[in-house]
């Protein structure tokens, strides 16, 4: 789960004296929105986003109504003048979870990844994170998601896993989440099968409560602090 395994290694970079027109053109060509700025030794000194570039351009340029003098002045403008210095960075040894929490905290679409010496090693975008998350959830494979409510006590998960394994069903993933009631947990096994009716019956027979699929709010479980 390390950032180094999920990041994009081949990174397009800019020098701080590149013109903003040239930087914008290269980003457009490569269909990217973040351009790390590095010095001659490959050390990260800033980042430019497509939004930085757009806000540097006056409205008259976009509308194609600005005069030559104004255009010439813009052509003189350098990446170093508009970049964000000291961007939030990740270390290759950071984990995907670290990155998820950082994305949630800062409204940033991508993090440059730098080693301890400050050298740019890659870039991790929200898109890379999502890919990792899709993988973790197992939803790239064909299967069925189930929801089971369990009491917070030892051995519950084992019973569930055993019951499902006995049916010869493979797991795509198992997610355990907090539930509204403090002493309960919601377990979401993603099973690589079309045939969950039997396993559902078996689990209900064992005393587990199935969660109505319409009551799944994976993203809205209350946090401990707010309670």
């Amino acid at each position, binding site marked *: 789960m390390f950032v180094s395994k999920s990041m994009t290694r081949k990174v397009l970079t800019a020098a701080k004296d590149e013109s903003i027109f040239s930087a914008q053109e290269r980003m457009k060509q490569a269909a990217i929105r973040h351009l790390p700025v590095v010095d001659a030794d490959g050390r990260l000194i800033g980042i430019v986003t497509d939004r930085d570039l757009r806000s540097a351009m006056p409205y008259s340029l976009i509308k194609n109504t600005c005069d030559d003098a104004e255009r010439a002045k813009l052509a003189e403008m350098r990446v170093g003048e508009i970049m964000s210095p000291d961007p939030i960075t990740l270390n290759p040894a950071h984990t995907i979870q670290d990155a998820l929490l950082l994305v949630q905290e800062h409204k940033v679409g991508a993090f440059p990844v730098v080693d301890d010496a400050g050298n740019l090693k890659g870039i991790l975008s929200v898109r890379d994170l999502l890919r990792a998350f899709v993988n973790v959830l197992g939803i790239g494979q064909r299967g069925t998601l189930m929801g089971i409510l369990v009491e917070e006590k030892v051995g519950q998960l084992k019973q569930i896993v055993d019951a499902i394994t006995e049916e010869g069903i493979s797991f795509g993933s198992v997610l355990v989440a907090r539930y509204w009631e403090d002493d309960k947990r919601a377990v979401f096994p993603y099973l*690589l099968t*079309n*045939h969950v009716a*039997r396993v559902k019956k078996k689990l209900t027979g064992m005393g587990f409560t199935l969660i109505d699929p*319409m009551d799944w709010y994976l993203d809205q479980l209350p946090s401990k602090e707010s309670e």
Partner: protein
Amino acid sequence: MKRTGFLHDIRYLLHDTGPYHPEMAERLQAIQKGVEAAGLLPQLTEIKAVPADMAWIEAVHATVYIRRFEEVCRSGVRQFDYSDNQMCTETYDTAILAVGGVLEAVRMVMAGEIDNAFCAVRPPGHHAEVAEAMGFCYFNNVAIAARYLQKEWGIERVGIVDFDVHHGNGTEHIFEEDPTVFYYSIHEHPSFAFPGTGRDFDTGKGAGKGFTKNSPMLPGQGDEEFKALIQQDLLPAFEGFRPEVILVSVGFDALDADEMADMRLSRACFTWIAEQLKVLADQYAEGRLISVLEGGYSIDHLGELAEDHLKVLMRD
């Protein structure tokens, strides 16, 4: 009255999925009994299965996959890759008979021997991918039929409607880049049901963009939502596409009483969808409609559902 073909064959019972599997031979026996009890057999043209020409199966499936399926099956191994795919030594031959029966039904419709047909086959097909068996499916019967229509009968535009409660991942995948085959599926939302594909923003790829349409339904929804989606999504799509032949993946597992998924269609709604499809076939495809059984696991209700389906096909 239309001349309606009914494909059923005792050899489809030979695919034995073991003691605890929902896709069992009793499904077809229930259908057979229902159709017989309703007294429909004398008015139907009975179609018997013939083994499919391997070339047609290879028009969709990878040769290495077909060979591997045959080897694993004949070796007596009871499971093919996933626990869903329980087999016996007859499974491979039965799957070839399922394809062959469907192709025979298509041939009879195209040759003008019958107007339309319902094919009660096992194993089902719509989850089967080019090189992967999945969700009780080995060969994609309907996809192979579409290729057969195009290559053998010169049909340019094939419309596939799949109202099984599960999305037909195999069929969609096989034709997602193909603008000559329109795949429409209505099913339980992939976040709640197998196979986890068939989202409403999946509309095909490349040249096939716009020739796939998915209408996911939320768990617990029923007739009203189903009918609204068909009217809103399927009817305009086929008006634009104008299929020359309509193939239907018939699944009876969206029935309220069916425990395989969480949708709540009534018996009457299955008659309604059959009527809609027949109208579409009459409008665009000279009435040519071949429906092929996919899922449907409520043994108590399969007989009457098949009876209703056939009665609609037979009506003028």
